[in-house]
């Protein structure tokens, strides 16, 4: 167990190192990315430029610059933005992380529950209009762009029907920390959650249905029926339980991606200051410290989520347990 943890830790460090080097090199290879000119301001004299370059260490060799940046990011945690001078990057991420975490987690709960229900129902009523209806609904959910859906949701709940009994409870856009008011947190996030979940409900529902249909042809499903079990039990305890293995591996990837800032569009539409939005901001300003910090953050979560998926795997699939 300890060895496995250590190995995982080593892998994480290696991944982080690789990604950070890549981000760093790509940044300095990008034309027009030279941060000196930005920091020095427009029409700065060559002397100012040289001074800035020296102050920020841009005149030093790249490995040294890299090491300095990593030190500032991870050890002293005083890495400052190149664009907003004096703005520290690490606290910015720490402030944005709970927003994204809340958004992704809530959305994930909704999409897992809804897609499992949807996929299972469709498989149980395979070939009927229930199946077809659910699958078409899933396809529509996949096809709707999340920013459009978000805007429409806002239009309905914030403007058009905000004064009716149905949506008068919807608070304004923005984020309310859970620690401040759990109810407020829930109210402000429930619509973003649903909007974020719609796409995934469609994908997961369809994937699960296909998986269940494939599993239903397996020998062990026939055995389960030959045992005299009820169709519901055969489908849920034998079929769904086995299909969960695929479901979880898919989920791990998507969830990690969202935590790492993949919910950008939802965050923007609903005015949530999350990591996705921060990353977007950093990229549009070519702000290396912020890019580096958000990429590192997201990489940590991807690796972490993969580790969690691996652990869940071990619980779900006894064959994996012996394989390691």
């Amino acid at each position, binding site marked *: 167990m300890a060895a496995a943890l250590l190995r995982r830790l080593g892998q994480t460090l290696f991944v982080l190192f690789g990604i950070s080097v890549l981000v760093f090199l790509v940044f300095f290879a990008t034309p027009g990315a030279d941060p000196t000119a930005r920091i020095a301001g427009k029409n700065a004299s060559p002397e100012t430029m040289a001074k800035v370059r020296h102050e920020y260490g841009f005149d030093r060799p790249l490995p040294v610059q890299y090491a300095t940046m990593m030190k500032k990011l991870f050890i002293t945690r005083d890495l400052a933005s190149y664009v907003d001078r004096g703005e520290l990057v690490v606290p910015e991420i720490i402030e944005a992380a709970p927003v994204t975490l809340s958004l992704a987690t809530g959305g994930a709960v909704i999409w897992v529950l809804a897609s499992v229900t949807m996929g299972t129902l469709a498989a149980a009523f395979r070939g009927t209009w229930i199946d077809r209806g659910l699958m078409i609904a899933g396809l529509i959910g996949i096809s709707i762009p999340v920013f459009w859906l978000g805007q429409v949701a806002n239009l309905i709940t914030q403007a058009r029907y905000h004064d009716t009994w149905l949506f008068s409870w919807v608070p304004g856009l923005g984020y309310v920390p859970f620690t401040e008011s759990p109810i407020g947190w829930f109210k402000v996030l429930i619509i973003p959650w649903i909007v974020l979940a719609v796409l995934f409900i469609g994908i997961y529902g369809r994937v699960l249905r296909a998986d269940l249909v494939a599993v239903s042809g397996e020998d062990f499903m026939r055995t389960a029926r030959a045992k005299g*079990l009820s169709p519901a039990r055969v489908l849920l305890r034998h079929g769904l339980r086995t299909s969960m293995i695929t479901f979880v591996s898919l989920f791990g990837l998507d969830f990690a991606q969202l935590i790492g800032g993949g919910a950008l569009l939802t965050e923007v539409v609903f005015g949530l200051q999350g990591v996705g939005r921060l990353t977007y901001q950093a990229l549009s300003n070519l702000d290396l410290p912020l890019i580096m910090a958000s990429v590192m953050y997201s990489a940590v979560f991807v690796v972490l989520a993969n580790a969690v998926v691996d652990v869940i795997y071990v619980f779900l699939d006894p064959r994996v347990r012996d394989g390691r």
Partner: protein
Amino acid sequence: MDAEAPILEVRDLSVSFRSQGRDVPIVENVSFAVGAREILGIVGESGSGKSVTAMTIMGLIDAPGVRVTGSALFRGQELIGMPQKALRRLRGRKIAMIFQDPMTAFTPVYTIGWQIDEQIRAHEKLGKAEARSRTVRLLGDMGVPDPERTANRYPHQLSGGLRQRAMIAMALSCNPALLIADEPTTALDVTVQAQILDLIRTLRADYGSSVLLITHDMGVVAETCDRVMVLYSGRIAERGPCDAIFAHPGHPYTAALLDSIPPLTGPRPERLPSIAGAPPPPLERPVGCAFAPRCHFTHDTCHALPPLQRYGQQDIACVLPKEGRPMPPRVTEYAQ
């Protein structure tokens, strides 16, 4: 109930699948009976309809477009057309099934014991502990070493032979009157095969079960069965007591099948006789005898469907005996 009455009596069972607007007959007018404590073998090559027959009796065929006609009486109860709910009460409790490949027949994510417990508790009001103790006892009876520990193992952790023993234990868990074994030894190696067949033979003494043994292996039949039914291309070729059929097969197909078993005594044949060609696909079945295209004795009268006729102790779907030209008795005695 009369002790002589058969446990299972199948009459004129036909199964057809709908494919591309046509009904494809898979099984045609198959009739047989399994007596109490009897082992009936159903023999045939792949696609002869033996598994479909078994699945139909179990009510496990529910693909759209399947048409089943005829009758299958289990202790006087009609199984064909029985509502699924009632069938479910029989399945696993009165009629149990063992499958060909024990590798894939268990759900991979549960322990063997869990799966046997599940079947017991689906049919009987038993607590977890009681079900488990029966599971362990059954596994022990089936010759599984250290049954308590084995019950807690997952299917992939067991060898093929052990898995098949566990499968049989599961099938026997509710003391079924009829056990349908669909090629139970095909996926196993030969020594394990013999052990499993031994086990199946002892079942009728220990558990009083009748067995319907489906196989494509004449050797398995010879070792295990009381009576045998040979299917060819979805139709009965020959049916009768095992000894009689092995001593003097009445249908050229049966004779050819028996000839293809290597003899245990006498000179070693250079090449084993084989049956040239392949059985016809269901849609291209001849109107007459389905075996005619591959038969050495084909003549004019074979173009009409031969009825099943009594000849000696056997029922034979061939015109030869009636025409006074029965198959000669076999020269080589089969190894007893």
